[in-house]
């Protein structure tokens, strides 16, 4: 008994107990639900057997009926459009800003940090603001686009099925740009200045320097930023809830919102679990890419 106590205070037991408490907590509230989710996707779950663990086993039926549903494939396609457009937008704008802020002028670091305020905002507040900005009749964006002559008729961003997904994408690009910019700035700052100076002496133009020095030396950072973007974009839920609720007619619905709708709007928990399992596999693959591209740094 005393040996155990002294080991906890002063030996291997100290390390093991510190890590074990956190790991048990994570396994209980993260690992176990993950497994439970996969099990439910093979079961028939309804409101009557929700409280029991023993439910009819249906094999792959949930997956079959998911893909037999004609609304499924468009939603997965929306997810792809949402993810790629969001990442592309965030990355391009973020990279542009990061490059701009490498220039030296007073207050550069402070102003750059100020951008990050978009990232700490609650997602639902960001959604509410953009919902109002993108409003059809009275939104400021339509007013601005009309006064500069881009459009002649109001665009009904939230209720037009051709634009509803883009309404959420615009908000998501705004939300994620600052985070991309900050991470890319860190990568840019790590490139030694003298490489550029040497290239400049050799007569390389700005575009050549960007293509042959900046891009190759930023490869690890870009890999990490893009895979983090993928992870964050697949986590995005609040903007959908606040701007379009996936509508109209699923035109702005994506898999992670649909999974929630299935469980908490239709009470079809098995369908919700089935979509979740598929998406979690995608997220896991993305995170393996992320871990690999930051491997050196992670291992310190």
């Amino acid at each position, binding site marked *: 008994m005393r040996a155990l106590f002294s080991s906890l*205070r*002063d030996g291997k037991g100290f390390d093991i107990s*510190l*890590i074990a*408490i*956190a790991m048990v*907590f*994570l396994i*209980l*509230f*993260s*690992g*176990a*639900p*993950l497994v439970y*989710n996969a099990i439910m996707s093979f079961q028939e779950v309804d409101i009557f057997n*929700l409280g*029991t663990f023993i439910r009819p086993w249906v094999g792959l039926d949930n997956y079959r009926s998911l893909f037999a549903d004609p609304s499924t494939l468009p939603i997965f396609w929306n997810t792809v459009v949402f993810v790629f457009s969001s990442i592309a937008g965030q990355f391009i704008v973020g990279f542009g800003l990061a490059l701009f802020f490498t220039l*030296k*002028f007073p*207050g*550069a670091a402070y*102003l750059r940090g*100020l*951008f*990050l*305020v*978009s990232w700490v*905002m*609650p997602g639902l*507040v960001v959604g*509410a*603001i*953009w919902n*109002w*900005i993108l409003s059809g009749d*009275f939104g*400021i964006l339509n007013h601005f686009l009309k*006064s500069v002559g881009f459009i002649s008729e109001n665009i009904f961003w939230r209720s037009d099925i051709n634009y509803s997904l883009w309404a959420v994408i615009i908000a998501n690009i*705004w939300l994620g740009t600052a985070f991309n910019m900050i*991470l890319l700035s860190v990568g840019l700052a790590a490139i030694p200045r003298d490489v550029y100076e040497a290239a400049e002496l050799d007569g390389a133009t700005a575009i050549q320097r960007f293509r042959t020095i900046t891009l190759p030396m930023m490869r690890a*950072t870009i890999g990490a930023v893009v895979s983090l973007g993928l992870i964050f974009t*697949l986590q995005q839920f609040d903007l959908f*809830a*606040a701007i379009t*609720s996936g509508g109209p007619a699923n035109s702005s619905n994506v898999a*992670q919102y649909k*999974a*929630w709708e299935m*469980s*908490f709007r239709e009470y079809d*928990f098995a369908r919700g*679990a089935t*979509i*979740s399992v598929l998406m*979690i596999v995608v*997220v896991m693959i*993305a*995170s393996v890419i992320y*871990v690999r591209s930051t491997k050196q740094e992670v291992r310190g």
Partner: protein
Amino acid sequence: MNEYGQKIWTSRLLLIVALGLAVIYLFPLYWMFVTSLKTGSDVFATPPALWPKVPQWSTYAEVWQSKNMARYMGNSLYIATGTMAITAILGTGCAYVLARYRNMWIDIGLFLVLMLQVLPASLMVTPLFVGFNQIGLLELPRTAVILALSAKTMPFFIILVRATFMAVPHELEEAALVDGNSRLGAFWNIVLPLARNGILVSAILIFMQAFGEFVYSKSMIQTSELQPASVGLNSFMGPNTNEWNKIMAFAMMYVMPILGIFILLQRRIVAGLTSGALK
């Protein structure tokens, strides 16, 4: 013009461009603020005014009263504080061990933590809800949210704090051990105080994240008396709302604490964030 003068002008020009970019980027936040100060009819004026004729500060008091915001904010605070406490207490020790050793088991542990960091809440909420319902945890919905949310935020916290512990020189801890401290003593008296700032900033990041949490609260907390402000804002908005000045006032009051923390600790937050995500 000499070279020195040219340099000054370039940097001034760049500063103006940077300010312009910041104004454009932060415009949505300004728009939230301005809309909250307009009257119900001014909100729908064409062209929209960039500043209200008479700022309606009274909207804030009115919304605070009629929407019972004290209760919503209290619940947000409760959930954020609980999540931060559990995450920091359990996560700090784990991060310390993961930073101290270098072997296969630590690599496996790190990999697991990184994997758990990426699970989207809207996908995890289905099994969490069903499981919590079965074990009766939904009787205490705010506690259920805190537990679920802590499991979501802890991996991120561990990664950030581990980076802090890596920066604490190992020799200091060894010296303390040689001086007769126990492992616990060395950790508590030497390592922890040195890593204090990093732990604090990471804990604040977790607090801000939990303060804005929506998915778990929306799904698990049915009674409005226990819901946080994010759920309150969501139900206030509704599908065909036209009270945008009031909604924006609600949103303004909701984000005030977060904005305050961000402005006070901006530099530390930016530094902490970048060290964890990339290094």
